[in-house]
C-alpha cells in the first residue's frame, strides 16, 4: 500500500510538471506582447523594452520557465500585469468562495443523483424509469449557464425568493448549486443505476435472498454497499473537474471565485494570473484523482496494492 501511494504520488508529480510546461509554453510563447500590454499603447519602445527586461521576458523560454518554477516552489506565482499585486494573494482571496460553490454543487449532485439512481435501478424498465432516464438525458444536455439564467429569471426575478447573483452565504449558494446539480446529477444516477443492476445479478445477492433477507435489506446492505464503490470514485474525480469547470456558473451567478478571476484575467490578457489559476485548478484535479485512488483501497477490501 505504501509503495503504491508513493508511486501514485510520483505519477501525479510528473503530470503536474507536464501541465506546467504545456501551460507555460502555450501562455507565454504567444504572439501577444505582455510588455506592451503593461506599458499601454502610448509608451515609447524604450519603456516597453525596460519592462521586458524587468520581467525577464528577454530570456530564453526555458530559463523563464525555470525561474517561474523556482518562484513557484517558494509560493510565488508572480505579479499581475494589470493590478501589480501578487497573483498568490489574488487567488487566495478567491479560493474560499470557489470551494464553497464547488462543494454546494457537488452535494446537490449527490442529493439528486443517488436517490434517483437507487429508484430507477429498483424499477428498471418500468415507465417511471424510462421517464426519469429521459429527463436525465435532457439534464446532461443542458448548458449550465442557460439553465442558470432560466432559474434566475424564475426564482430571482419573477418570484423573488433567491438573490439575483453575487457571493455570500447559503442563501446565495442554493440556486447555483441546484443548477449544477440538475445538469450533473444524471451522471451519478446513471452510474449508480447501472452498477446496481450489475450487482443485483451477482451470486452473493442471491445468497442474501436465500438467507431470507428482505428486499430492503438486500438492496441497502448488499447491493448498495457494493454499487457505491464506483460512485465514490466518480464523485472524487468529479469534484476536481467541477472546480476546473466552475467558470461558467460563477459568471452566470456573478460569484466572485477563481473562475471569475481567471475569466477577467483572460479578458485583460493578464498572463501570470491565468497561469496561476490554471495551474492551481489542475493541481486540484490531480489531487482529487490521487485521493480517490488511495481511498479506493479502504472502500473495497478486495483491492490490495502490490
Amino acid at each position: 500500500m505504501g509503495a503504491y501511494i508513493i508511486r501514485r504520488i510520483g505519477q501525479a508529480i510528473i503530470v503536474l510538471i507536464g501541465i506546467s510546461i504545456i501551460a507555460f509554453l502555450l501562455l507565454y510563447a504567444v504572439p501577444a506582447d505582455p510588455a506592451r500590454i503593461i506599458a499601454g499603447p502610448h509608451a515609447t519602445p524604450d519603456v516597453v523594452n525596460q519592462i521586458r527586461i524587468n520581467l525577464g521576458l528577454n530570456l530564453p523560454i526555458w530559463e523563464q520557465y525555470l525561474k517561474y518554477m523556482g518562484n513557484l516552489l517558494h509560493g510565488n506565482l508572480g505579479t499581475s500585469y494589470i493590478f501589480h499585486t501578487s497573483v498568490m494573494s489574488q487567488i487566495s482571496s478567491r479560493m474560499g468562495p470557489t470551494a464553497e460553490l464547488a462543494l454546494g454543487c457537488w452535494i446537490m449532485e449527490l442529493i439528486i443523483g443517488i436517490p434517483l439512481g437507487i429508484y430507477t435501478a429498483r424499477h428498471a424498465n418500468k415507465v417511471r424509469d424510462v421517464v426519469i432516464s429521459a429527463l436525465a438525458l435532457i439534464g446532461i444536455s443542458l448548458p449550465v449557464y442557460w439553465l442558470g439564467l432560466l432559474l434566475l429569471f424564475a426564482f430571482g426575478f419573477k418570484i423573488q425568493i433567491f438573490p439575483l447573483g453575487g457571493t455570500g452565504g447559503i442563501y446565495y449558494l442554493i440556486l447555483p448549486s441546484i443548477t449544477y446539480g440538475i445538469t450533473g446529477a444524471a451522471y451519478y444516477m446513471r452510474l449508480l443505476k447501472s452498477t446496481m443492476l450489475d450487482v443485483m445479478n451477482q451470486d452473493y445477492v442471491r445468497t442474501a435472498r436465500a438467507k431470507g433477507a428482505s428486499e430492503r435489506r438486500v438492496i441497502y446492505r448488499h447491493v448498495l454497499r457494493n454499487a457505491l464503490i464506483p460512485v465514490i470514485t466518480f464523485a472524487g474525480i468529479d469534484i476536481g473537474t467541477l472546480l476546473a469547470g466552475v467558470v461558467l456558473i460563477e459568471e452566470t451567478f456573478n460569484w466572485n471565485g477563481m473562475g471569475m478571476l481567471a475569466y477577467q484575467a483572460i479578458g485583460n490578457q493578464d498572463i501570470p494570473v491565468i497561469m496561476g489559476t490554471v495551474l492551481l485548478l489542475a493541481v486540484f484535479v490531480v489531487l482529487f484523482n490521487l485521493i480517490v485512488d488511495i481511498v479506493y483501497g479502504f472502500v473495497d477490501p478486495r483491492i490490495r496494492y502490490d
Partner: protein
Amino acid sequence: MSKVLESTDLQNVLEVKDLQIEFKVDEQYYKAVHGVNFHIAPGETLGLVGESGCGKSVTSMSIMRLLKDPTKVSGQIIYQGRDLLKLTENQMRQVRGNEIGMIFQEPMTSLNPVHKIGRQIGETLLLHRGMSASRARKESIEMLKRVGIPRAEQIVDEYPHQLSGGMRQRVMIAIAMACNPSLLIADEPTTALDVTIQAQILELMKQLAKENGTSILLITHDLGVVAETCDRVAVMYAGRIVEEGSVRKIFKNPQHPYTRGLLNSIPKLTGERKRLEPIEGNVPSLRNMPDGCRFAPRCPFAMDKCVAHNPELFEVEDGHRSRCFLQEGGQ
C-alpha cells in the same frame, strides 16, 4: 427442537407436484420445467441429475422462490405440509435460510466481497434467531469450527477474498446450516472445486446432514458424486424427470435409454479401456422442443409412437420409475 420430532414422522419434508416453470424470452414464454414431481423424506438425500439446460437448477431455485420475474411457476411445492408457492413474500422469507438452507455452485462469487465472514454467517442468525451482534459473532465462530475451518477466531474477521474456494464453500455451508434447516439445497456445490477439495466438501455435507437429520436436495451433473452421496436419484432431461429410483437401482439397473446412455458415455477409472458409447446429437433448445418424448431424436430405440406421444413415468419396480415406452406395462 420440535423439528427433530417432526422429522421422525413418515411425512415427507418436501413434495413437489406437477411443477411447471416458464421463462420469457423475446416476449414469448418457453417452458423450462414441464410437470416435475418428486419428494424427499426426512434425513434423505435426493440427487437431481442432468446435463446443462435440463431444468435442474431452475427447479431448485423455484423451491426457494428465488427465480426472477418474468418467470411463471405453477404446481405445488409442499414443504412440511405448506405450499410454498402460496405463501406471502414475508412468510417465504421466514422459510429461506431458516427452514431451508441453500448453497451454490460458485463459492468464489457467492459471498459478499465487502462484508466480513462473521457478519455474513451472523446475518442469518440475526434475521431468524433475533440474536444480538455479539452473540451472532460467537455463534458464527462455532459454525466455522463445525464446518472445519481452522483459525475460526481469525477467519471470522476476514473478507471472502482472503479465503480459497474450498474454504469459501465451507463458509457457504456454515451460512446455510446456521439455523439448523430441515432441508439443504445444494446446487452443484462442488463443480467449481478440485477433486481433493470436492471430497472434503462432500464428506462435510454428509457428516453435518447425519448429525442434524437434515434432508438434502443435491443438484449435480456428476454421476459419480450422486453415486457416492445420494439415497435416491431423479434424472432430468429437457425439463422432465425421465427416471427415478434408489441409487442402487438407477446405477445397477438403469431403464431409461438416456440414463443408460449417460452411464455408458463416462470413461471409467478401472477396468479395460474401450471406445466410449456417446449419446448422439445435442440437447434440444428451449425454443424447439421435440413433440412426444423429448429424448426420441437422440434415442437409439425410438419408435413411431415416441415421436408422437409423450410417455408417462412407468413403474418398473417398487419406487423405480422410467419415462419410456419400453417400460410400458412394467417388466
